[in-house]
């Protein structure tokens, strides 16, 4: 029982990451119809916003400490962050410690700008081009973005810990009457789950309850009619792209303490995010979120020892197997609309 609850928690946690990435992708791919292979790169850029901010906060000057030596036997140069000089050591250290949450504010404008620049500068010209061309251009862009990051940050993973306050685990089990340590879950992952839920709710509310959202939804359904009404749908689609980029970026920002970022992390998520969007059904935002959670939970259960022993390798293939079964029983995924990217 405790194992099952634990894996449900895990599934919700994994699912929230999948859902968040798929949500941004489905705004662009499922609804604007652009096969965006650069979406993983946006997720990665978000994570590197965190790395950049944390490096900026830790900008340092060197102080020579004569009492210690470095690896070559010379006097050790110790880096002292400027923040220590400005705010004193305690406050300075606390600010650096909170780099990840602070990055949320830092990354939103940056990611929106990147998204808008991407749409205006590149994607705009590809709405009417074949999907094949969209794949080539966005894949090229993804590689370029990735290589730029690699050039400046290297290929190794960069540790970006959560603030001290979120280190450690919450004992769920004890709270609901199990033995201590039976069901524990790290604070930061709980934060991630609630963050994802809030962001998803925010995007839905935005599309559902604002005039802007209504126009965009109408434009997704029938772009030409909306344009005939004299509404500039292009500009709104640009903004949607910015929002999608910001959602992907925020997913990346908050993910950094869970998996230390490297330049390749976007590609690792690319395949799974496409699978989630399509399994959810093209053109459906709730579908993408639902599929994210379904696949997340399935993956968690498949990684249980008892199940792997029963079916070796199931943990490797469960997502793909589920995708195949879902697509064969439900032709347009879980909640897909007819006629979107079916030809």
């Amino acid at each position, binding site marked *: 029982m405790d194992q099952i609850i634990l894996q449900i928690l895990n599934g919700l946690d994994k699912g929230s990451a999948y859902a968040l990435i798929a949500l941004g992708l489905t705004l662009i791919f499922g609804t604007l119809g652009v096969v965006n292979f650069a979406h993983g790169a946006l997720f990665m850029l978000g994570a590197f916003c965190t790395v950049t901010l944390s490096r900026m906060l830790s900008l340092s000057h060197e102080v020579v400490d004569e009492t210690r030596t470095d690896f070559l036997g010379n006097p050790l140069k110790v880096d002292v962050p400027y923040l220590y000089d400005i705010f004193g050591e305690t406050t300075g250290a606390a600010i650096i410690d909170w780099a990840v949450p602070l990055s949320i504010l830092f990354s939103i404008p940056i990611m929106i700008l990147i998204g808008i620049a991407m749409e205006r500068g590149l994607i705009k010209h590809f709405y009417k*081009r074949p999907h094949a061309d969209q794949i080539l*251009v966005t894949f090229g862009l993804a*590689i370029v973005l990735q290589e730029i990051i690699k050039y400046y940050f290297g290929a190794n993973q960069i540790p970006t810990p959560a603030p001290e306050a979120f280190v450690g685990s919450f004992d769920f089990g004890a709270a609901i009457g199990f033995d201590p340590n039976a069901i524990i879950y790290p604070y930061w992952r709980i934060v991630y789950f609630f963050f994802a839920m809030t962001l998803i709710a925010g995007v839905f509310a935005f599309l559902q309850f604002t005039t802007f959202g209504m126009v965009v939804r109408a434009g997704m359904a029938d772009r030409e009619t909306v344009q005939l009404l004299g509404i500039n749908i292009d500009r709104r689609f640009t903004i949607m792209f910015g929002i999608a980029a910001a959602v992907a970026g925020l997913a990346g920002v908050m993910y950094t303490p869970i998996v230390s970022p490297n330049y390749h992390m976007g590609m690792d998520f690319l395949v799974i995010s496409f699978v989630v969007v399509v399994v959810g059904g093209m053109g459906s935002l709730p579908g993408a979120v639902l599929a994210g959670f379904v696949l997340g939970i399935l993956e968690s259960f498949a990684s249980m020892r008892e199940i792997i022993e029963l079916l070796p*390798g199931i943990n490797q293939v469960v997502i793909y197997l589920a*995708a195949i079964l879902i697509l064969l029983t439900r032709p347009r995924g879980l909640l897909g609309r007819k006629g979107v990217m079916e*030809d």
Partner: protein
Amino acid sequence: MLGLDKKDFTLLLIVSALVLLAPLLLNPFPEGSAMAQFNAGYPDLMQRFVIFGIFAIGFNILFGLTGYLSFGHAAFLGAGSYAGMWMLKLLSMNVIPAIIFSTLIAGAISFLIGWISLRRSGIYFSILTLAFAQMAFVLAASVLTPITGGETGLQPALSDPRILPEFLGGGSVTADGNIPKPSLFGIEMTASSEVAVGNWLWTLNWGYYLSGFMMLVAFYIAIRIFRSPFGLMLKAVKSNQQRMSYTGLNTRPYMLACFVISGMYAGLAGGLMAAMDPQVGAERMQWTASGEVVLMTILGGVGTLIGPVLGAGLIKYFENIFSKINKATLEVWFGVFPDWMTDLMVTIVYPFIGKGWHLTLGLMFMAVVIFLPGGLVEGGQKIAKLFSRKKEPETPGGEAKPAE
């Protein structure tokens, strides 16, 4: 000629000439010169050019004609390779059984996957093929290790049976105690002759010419398919499936046949890869490998005959030539300039070569798709137009473009 019209026959002749003369054409720079770095006329890369050419031609029969974007074609390449390798291990080092068996196995597997995946169209089809291929990849790399050699891959070993008689390539061990090499009735695939003219050096390699011949056969069959009623039906599938069924045509067997043919091309390519370089790694089946053939085809020109081969060549050229340029090479190239300028040039160029070859590749993808919509073939046509005096009559209605 050969059942082709004049234009297609000319194309086939040109491609044959290119394949035949590739060892010369790809080595335009003399040995030892600074530009020799850009020579691509060595057996391994030439083999890769034609083998990936076969893979891309086959993929294009599916994607170019029917518009069905398979994102799992690498599974057939990998299956073909494993099948071929098992033939090399069990039967003989003769490449013929390996090539035949790999094509058949890939055909059988693509029949199964196609039969299921073709129930859906568009992006749903793409994801189904992707899912099958990814399953094949992860299983091959882990639980199927006894069959596939896992992540390390499958290679011939001294202990393999190779049951056929010696003159057919059988036998576990050579006289000098080594693993025999893949061969064609005694001619080893690595055997080469070298021709030196001045400082130019050309390597004529048996393996390359066998692969090149197979590519020509594959190319020829592809032309025939493009020009056949079957090819016409596949174009009809791409254009309007609804009309097709109301015209009394069953799209399913057409699609399935096309998928299987395409899968067999991939299997042939896989078998040849195993025969040229006896080692099969699971990553041959990964989605990145499936994506690579998609990119090759788009880069060269979807639905064109020669485009996929050009796309395959370009990507493999970048992967193998640009990745090998290092800082020391650059310093030699720019060494003629004053020191400060050498440093400057090296600093500017360095991010794009060696470990930065991905960056150059990404930029090239973007440049091609932005400036040459329709791929390299279209670029070639544009250049040809610039040079031809004859002005094409403008047809406002749009004459249907022949699939070139």
